[in-house]
């Protein structure tokens, strides 16, 4: 299973931030958009088309799932929210491990250069 997940990495930056945004709790579309902007310190500002393109693919791949919230949206219908599935969480964890390994290796090398 771990080797299967490794073949899905690395994630694109936008996909990584969307998954990261959903890690603590389910969110609706606009909350994801704002959260990604905050997480990336304003560097990644998703348009609606890009955000929903990513959400569509993540739903198809089974990395996230859609929920209907108790709170209605502006049209009076149940607001749709998205949350990570177990597979999505495993993939996010694997990507974080991969990034951590890279950072550790780079820090060790740079420490050697500076010393």
């Amino acid at each position, binding site marked *: 299973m771990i080797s299967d997940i490794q073949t899905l990495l690395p994630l694109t930056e936008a996909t990584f931030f969307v998954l990261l945004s959903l890690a603590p709790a389910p969110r609706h579309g606009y909350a994801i958009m704002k959260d990604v902007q905050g997480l990336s310190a304003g560097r990644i500002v998703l348009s*609606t088309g890009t955000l929903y393109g990513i959400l*569509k693919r993540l739903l198809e*791949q089974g990395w996230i799932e859609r929920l209907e919230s108790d709170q209605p949206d502006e049209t009076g*219908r149940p607001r749709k929210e998205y949350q990570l599935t177990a597979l999505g969480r495993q993939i996010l964890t694997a990507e974080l491990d991969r990034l951590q390994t890279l950072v550790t290796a780079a820090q060790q090398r740079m420490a050697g250069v500076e010393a």
Partner: protein
Amino acid sequence: MNRAAFLASQAYAALLRLYPPSFRHEFGDELQIVFAAAVADATAQGRLAFAMTCGRELRDLAPALVREYAAHWFRKDVTMQTLTAKSHGNPVLWGALGLGLAMGLKYVATTWLSWSTRGGVLSPLLTATLTLLLYALTGALAGLSLGWATGKARALAPAGALGFVLALGVSRGTYTALAAWAPTADWIILLAAVFISALCGAVFGAVLGGIGWGRERLGWAALAGGVTFGIGELSGRLLQSWIFVRFGQQTPWSTGLAFTLFGVMSGALAGAALGWALRPRRVAIS
């Protein structure tokens, strides 16, 4: 909601119709709600934030449409990177299809341009500009189809445009000057036309092969382009003579249709040959 935000939301709702129906049905309502919320927030922050929000949506619209239609048609996950960086089929077939279609469109547009010029609707400068744009479009379409099949779409689409403009622009200009200056014996004109077309095809092939793969493919692609464009020109001239001898002066429509069909066939031949010359090759690993 102020007037500008209202108008932006209306325009956004209209633009949503450009997406594939399946995407629109699944996410259309949510997209409108999210856009309205983004616009409301931006409006509160001022005109610049509002303009940037609308500009971002417009900027991302075209890539999002390409991505969603590709996913819709091919039923698989497609990003712009995978669209332009992977091989997607047989280059001989894609080359034939792309260049055949491009040459057919070129003949239709050339016929229209020729009538417009004759009627004095378009100025010579505008006609020349439109002709060069048409060549660029034809070459880009041919390059894109070959690049789609060989995983070199990003390089071959602009290379095709450049190659076709260089080849047809320069060669047709030379031919026109030669035809005005040289003795008008039919066989000399025929030989000159075939030679110039072969040269034009060789330049087109060389630019495609050279930009896509460097010196490795330049020779074969130039040879494939030269031979097939030469054959195409010779066949076209013979077809033209046969039409005039057999049917006399035809209407512009029937002549245009005959040459468009001929363009599709000769383009398909040239595209297939270029696709063969530019096909991905297996590398033996010892």
